[in-house]
């Protein structure tokens, strides 16, 4: 075999001739490696931030004495702490403790973390910035907490806590209250004497901290019903540690001092923080990385498709040159290696630029991030590790080379004879599609069958297996769709093209061009199809989940908000407070009573005013059917009672009994509803009254907050329940997740769209003579541009439309499988999202044609006459 030298030279020469075309392919790889790089860097930023937050609580301690493991038993006693403090070289010791209590200024505030005033400034992340550290009955606050409580130096705040009788935790008594006395709830007043900054964000996730003297904190802790374990002691030394390890002497001295506790370890602060951070980031953050990497993998897959396509076209255009090389003695192996070498060079260069781009993007993100209030301290610069450079480089290069395997094989199939044939219309012989047909048919049939099974299982209350089958089946089916795309996608394009072709000769030319190379069109459209399918699937699933959840909440709770009162005397006050709140519409009183219904004792019925009820509930037409002398029953309840519509049933209680006509209602929550008048006739005992209300304001969550505030002003305890807020909140969560997922998938879609541009440009280059001929025989520049625009739109449109159809199918299947536990599944069509996808695809298809069209329009018609 010849040495690889001539191959390399040949490769470089050929690359130089196709720089423009390769660049376009390189962009696809560039984007996906940038994506991978950003993901890796984001991962390390998250790890770094986690580490910093963990390290922050250790402040500037030199060492940490800890009891490893959490058996929940071992704890450092006061004596141990004192003994450690007495060790030679130890200047101060601070147990790492916290206490949580209700801290308020009037109505503001809530459950809050308390921390002791540090023994030594080095042993607390807090830095006093204003005032003094607190003494007894005083407190220092972090500025954000002070702001939230709306207090300043000298103001009073109150802390509410429960004092459990002594011996409560250790008592073995059956009824501790009887033996030891009841726990006592007390409220103490504290004066704010200082503001302490938390520069490292140690308490950011706790909403700040309140510092009280260590003695006070210890007293409060001691009065709790469970005792906090002290497992970590922060140690400040006379002389700062010089190395990264704790001197053996100190270690031994501390071990000796704490001999009462087993397995004590003495480590540097850094070592403890690193170990804890690793523990934490191994879990959640790893999930995050895997999650994002999935999308990076999708982006890479689509980039690979774009690369394969580009190389196929480039090889096709080189057919003549390759055949010539074969004529003068180049072996197939040499050509094969030449193409792969070309791919490797392209992959490496594009990946390197992608890594640089990714690093710059990540750095830019870190620069702008502080202007958003993220609540966590984040580093100012990215930390480039060898992984974040080598991994994307290797992945990008390998993917490019793999993507070039098939085109490299086609290069070897170029017959030397091709050099002697006229050069018009380079086409590669398509391989027999039989294997493809069989494999994709199997995948399609098997995949959809499995998907169907999954849906079936999901609908029959085993969603966990159902989901497994559905995801597996969906993936296999999708593989089949993508694999078989070349066989049917061009036909769909032809059908669509037939419609488009009516609009004029330029469109007809475009349609013919789209169909002349089915393989290329299919490959280009398929890349987009994958992205669009995934986006549509996600938004369909999300929309279905939202609708199903809304539906479920609507069915379970016919009202937006309900307030239950602890005692009947406050009901009217509560109703007034509720009705007076901004954003609250109609209100209605519903009285629950225990009665005998049709012989069944202790049956719960609801008495209410039909007029008011209709104004509140989300099924007013059902509520209106209630009249005096009737009872609403669901079909199901009526069936179990063996009654039908119009039958009479007896309702009886302490006050007497009435006969009521049965009215069948379709609204589940209005089961066993009667008028208040009828209920009063029967009983006035054992009843409690709730208030239902309709929310008319736009921001449900805000209105609900106001309702809680308003209700809190009324005496007596009241319980507020807001299914509307629940629905809104659920919707928000779904939207956020959907936003993230679609954002990540967008990268893949962008790459696919680059693929469309790429294919169009390559086709234009290939068709220079043809374009010139058309220009010579009377095609105007405008028509030429129009022709390419239609081509771009057709390729992109076919991918988008088929993607939407598939996405809907998969989305609905997923919803049917996963959501059936929630009750009735609603199959939503996310029209807005679909419209956005279609518009983006069509506009992108148009834009993709702009550059190639400009190049084509520039070609003089003289080129058609040239002999080349």
């Amino acid at each position: 075999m010849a040495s690889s030298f001539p191959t390399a030279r040949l490769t470089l020469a050929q690359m130089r001739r196709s720089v423009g075309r390769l660049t376009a392919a390189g962009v696809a790889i560039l984007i996906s490696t940038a994506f991978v790089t950003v993901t890796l860097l984001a991962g390390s930023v998250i790890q770094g931030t986690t580490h910093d937050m963990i390290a922050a609580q250790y402040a500037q301690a030199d060492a940490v004495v800890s009891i490893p493991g959490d058996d929940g038993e071992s704890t450092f006693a006061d004596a141990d702490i004192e003994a450690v403090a007495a060790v030679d070289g130890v200047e101060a010791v601070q147990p790492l403790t916290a206490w949580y209590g209700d801290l308020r200024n009037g109505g503001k505030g809530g459950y809050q973390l308390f921390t002791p005033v540090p023994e030594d400034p080095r042993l607390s992340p807090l830095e006093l910035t204003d005032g003094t550290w607190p003494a007894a009955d005083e407190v220092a606050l972090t500025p954000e907490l002070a702001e939230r409580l709306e207090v300043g130096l000298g103001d009073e705040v109150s802390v509410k806590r429960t004092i459990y009788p002594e011996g409560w935790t250790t008592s073995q008594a059956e009824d501790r209250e009887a033996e030891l006395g009841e726990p006592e709830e007390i409220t103490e007043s504290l004066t704010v004497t200082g503001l302490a900054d938390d520069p490292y964000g140690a308490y950011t996730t706790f909403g700040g901290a309140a510092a009280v003297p260590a003695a006070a904190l210890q007293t409060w802790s001691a009065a709790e019903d469970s005792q906090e374990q002290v497992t970590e002691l922060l140690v400040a030394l006379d002389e700062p540690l010089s190395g990264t390890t704790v001197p053996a002497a100190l270690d031994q001295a501390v071990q000796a001092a704490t001999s009462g506790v087993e397995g004590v370890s003495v480590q540097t602060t850094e070592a403890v923080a690193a170990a804890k951070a690793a523990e934490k980031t191994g879990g959640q953050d790893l999930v995050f990385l895997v999650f994002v990497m999935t999308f990076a993998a999708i982006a890479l897959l689509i980039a690979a498709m774009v690369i394969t396509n580009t190389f196929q076209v480039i090889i096709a255009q080189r057919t003549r040159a390759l055949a010539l090389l074969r004529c003068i003695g180049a072996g197939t192996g040499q050509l094969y290696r030449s193409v792969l070498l070309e791919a490797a060079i392209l992959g490496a260069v594009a990946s390197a630029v992608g890594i640089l781009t990714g690093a710059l993007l990540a750095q830019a993100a870190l620069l702008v991030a502080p202007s958003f209030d993220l609540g966590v301290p984040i580093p100012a610069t990215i930390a480039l590790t060898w992984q974040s450079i080598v991994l994307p480089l290797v992945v990008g290069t390998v993917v490019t080379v793999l993507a070039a395997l098939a085109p490299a094989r086609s290069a070897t199939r170029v017959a030397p004879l091709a050099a002697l044939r006229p050069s018009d219309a380079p086409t590669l012989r398509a391989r027999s599609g039989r294997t493809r047909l069989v494999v994709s048919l199997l995948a399609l049939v098997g995949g959809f069958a499995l998907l169907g099974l999954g849906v079936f299982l999901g609908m029959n209350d085993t969603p966990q297996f159902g989901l497994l089958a559905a995801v597996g089946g969906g993936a296999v089916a999708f593989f089949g769709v993508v694999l078989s795309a070349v066989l049917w996608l061009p036909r769909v394009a032809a059908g669509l093209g037939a419609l488009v072709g009516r609009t004029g000769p330029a469109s007809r030319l475009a349609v013919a061009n789209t169909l002349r190379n089915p393989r290329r069109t299919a490959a280009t459209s398929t890349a987009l199809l994958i992205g669009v399918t995934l986006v549509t699937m996600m938004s369909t699933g999300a929309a279905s989940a939202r609708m199903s959840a809304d539906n479920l909440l609507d069915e379970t709770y016919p009202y937006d908000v309900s307030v239950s009162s602890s005692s009947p005397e406050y009901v009217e006050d509560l109703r007034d407070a509720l009705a007076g709140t901004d954003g609250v519409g109609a209100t209605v009183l519903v009285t629950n009573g225990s009665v005998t219904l049709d012989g069944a004792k202790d049956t719960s019925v609801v008495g209410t005013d039909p007029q008011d009820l209709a104004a509140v509930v989300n099924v007013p037409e059902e509520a209106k059917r209630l009249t005096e002398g009737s009872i609403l029953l669901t079909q199901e309840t009526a069936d179990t009672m063996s009654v039908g519509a119009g039958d009479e049933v007896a309702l009886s209680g302490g006050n007497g009994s009435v006969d009521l006509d049965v009215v069948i209602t379709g609204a589940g929550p209005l089961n066993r509803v009667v008028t208040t008048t009828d209920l009063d006739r029967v009983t006035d005992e054992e009843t409690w009254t709730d208030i239902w209300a309709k929310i008319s304001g736009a921001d449900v969550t805000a209105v609900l907050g106001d309702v809680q505030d308003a209700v809190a002003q009324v005496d007596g305890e009241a319980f507020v329940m807001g299914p509307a807020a629940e629905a809104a909140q659920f919707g928000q969560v779904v939207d956020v997740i959907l936003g993230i997922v679609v954002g990540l998938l967008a990268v893949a879609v962008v790459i696919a769209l680059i693929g469309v541009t790429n294919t169009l440009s390559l086709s234009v280059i290939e068709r220079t003579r043809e374009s010139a001929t058309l220009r010579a025989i009377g095609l105007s520049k405008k028509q030429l541009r129009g022709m390419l625009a239609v081509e771009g739109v057709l390729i992109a449109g076919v991918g988008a439309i088929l993607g939407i159809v598939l996405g809907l199918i998969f989305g609905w299947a997923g919803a049917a499988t996963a959501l059936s536990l929630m009750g009735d599944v609603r199959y939503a069509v996310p029209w807005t999202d679909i419209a956005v996808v279609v518009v983006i695809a069509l506009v992108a298809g148009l834009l993709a044609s702009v550059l190639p069209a400009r190049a084509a329009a520039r070609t003089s018609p003289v080129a058609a006459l040239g002999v080349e």
Partner: protein
Amino acid sequence: MPVTAGVRNSPYDLGMTAAVQDQPGAGRGAAPVVRNVCGMDTTVYAPGSSSPAVRARSLTKTYGKGEATVRALDGVDVDFEQGRFTAIMGPSGSGKSTLMHLLAGLDSATSGQAFLGSTEITGLNDKALTRLRRDRVGFVFQQFNLLPMFTAEQNITLPVELAGGTADKAWFDTLVDTLGLAGRLTHRPGELSGGQQQRVAIARALIAQPDVVFADEPTGNLDSRSGAEVLSFLRRSVRELGRTIIMVTHDPSAAAYADRAVLIADGRIAGDISDPTPESAMAGLDALRTLEPSVATAPGTGV
């Protein structure tokens, strides 16, 4: 100075078939307009003849700048009559194609004027030129340049469709009959021989009934038999269908099919032969090679 150079056998002379043998000079007996272009006249257009289809006036085209300037066309004055088959003949690199490009509005002139009928095309913008090419000019290319994804029929009617119209059925049938394409209409270019493809291209050039058809080396990619066929079709188009055709060629035996051959050398008109025969065309061409350009305008017309 009469040219008496011997007739060299061109490759096309070898193995000439019956189809070809009846060609050279065959038109002369059919009483074409025999213009007597005076042997020593340095102007080659004949004033006073019927209004010309295409005219060039001091048409000049230079490529490149400074040292590297190439004068591809150097002040060309020439007329092409309506209803005639004219050949532009000259050695390779003499400026034939350049002249044709300028006359057809495919390329812009450096100076001078070109007219199609009464329209000065040297002053038109791209849009007007496109319309002119679409409606009034037809092209036949050396490489055929058919669109591979369309059938023969679709290729033929394409210019009319681009103009937003539909082909005149009777004219289409006439063309198909004349060019012998009846059985090939549903075939794609890939399924046609070179000669057939070029005949489709001729039909395409004629479908819009243009004022003039330009053909650049239409037989350059064909074997002699197909070439001869194509040339006789071109001539029939002129004789029977009344079209005007201007053909660029370097081949004397191809030029012999024309009613007239305009000789060009070094970007200047160098002679004019009425009713050329292969021999007279060859002689004219040889004279260009052996003589100085200034003298080369003198060759006798007929042989």
